[in-house]
């Protein structure tokens, strides 16, 4: 993916350099004296600019598509990991504390382990998700 994108970026750079050179050349030509050459060069520049625009658009669309696919894959993997963890450890609490510490929410916190005073895997995953999100947000 990176190689393809790198190649596109190089092509784009080349086109930009070419356009810049042509523009420099155009600035040296007098429109009055060499109109035909001026017009030809201008047409070339316009054509190259349109080609560059199309190229940039397609590259941006490709990048957006790749980003979207990666996001989807990431979310699927995350969901799969969470489901598998819950499936495997649903009966085991993450840790056990005296139940009066977490009253009146002890049942909710202990879900689905059912252990009195325990912290269930679901609750712990939700809490960790939120904390990591806040941490990443603060760091970024």
């Amino acid at each position: 993916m990176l190689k393809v994108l790198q190649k596109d970026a190089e092509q784009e750079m080349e086109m930009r350099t070419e356009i810049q050179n042509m523009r420099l050349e155009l600035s040296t030509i007098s429109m009055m004296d060499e109109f035909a050459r001026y017009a030809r060069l201008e047409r070339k520049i316009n054509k190259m600019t349109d080609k560059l625009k199309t190229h940039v658009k397609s590259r941006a669309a490709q990048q957006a598509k790749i980003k979207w696919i990666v996001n989807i894959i990431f979310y699927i993997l995350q969901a799969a990991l969470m489901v598998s963890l819950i499936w495997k450890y649903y009966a085991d609490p993450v840790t056990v504390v005296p139940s009066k510490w977490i009253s009146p929410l002890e049942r909710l916190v202990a879900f689905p382990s059912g252990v009195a005073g325990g912290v269930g895997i679901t609750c712990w995953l939700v809490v960790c998700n939120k904390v990591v999100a806040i941490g990443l947000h603060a760091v970024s």
Partner: protein
Amino acid sequence: MEAGDEASGRSAAQRRAESRRRRLLQNSEQRMNRIVGFGKGDADSSEDRHTMEPRFHLDLDPNDAWTPPVSSKRLSPYISETGGSKNTTPSSTPERRGSPLPDSREDLGEDDLSRGVRQRPRGELSSDEHSRSPRRGLQKYLSRFDDAMKLRGQLANEKAAQDSSSDPEELDPFRLFRLTGSVLLAVFVRIFVCQYLSIFAPFLTLELAYMGLYKYFPKVEKKSKTTVLTAALLLSGIPAEVINHSMDTYRKMGDVFADLCVYFFTFIMCHELILLFGSESS
């Protein structure tokens, strides 16, 4: 004879072309009215027209006036061309009769047109009542469509702005203060308080304190983002103030939930660390 027929035919064709050109150049609102079946002489519904005007303009020039004097002035060249004896009221245009397409009237002779013009006022009053509600419905639909297009444009702009901007939302000082307070309280509660009461009681007290302290912090202007949900709610008819208020409430609930998660996480981590160091020391 043939040359004479040809000349008269050409002049009739020229006249038709001229009238067609004039009709096309006429006010586009008039055309829309004719398509909808809205009559010019309908004075009662002119108020509705004016109130709906900002919404009804899809691709029209907002400076175009719908007032009858303007339209009658515009119609007058056409009417004078077809014949001065015709009824010159703005509503008595041939298109009002049947097909909305102006070109369909090309084949009618002038007599047919005048008959149509004369016959119109009789049936007009009775059909006005019936045509008003579908007209309103259509105008309402068009205004909603307009709103939907605007919201769609806003959504696209928001998405583009989000894509271009690297930092969508910063941690404002109050939010940072809240999170730090939650962490410190969790440590304090684990060490000193948890043996005596529930850990959620100090947390609730902390949240109440935050509500009071909020006004002492610099207010960060939170730009209300147009999302698909808010756009759908707006289009369903819910007022924007209600949506903003609800979004604000949800944002506050989200902040409280974030504080709770940080607090609980810190508490459990503290508990585990104390157990670990306690077991190691023992």
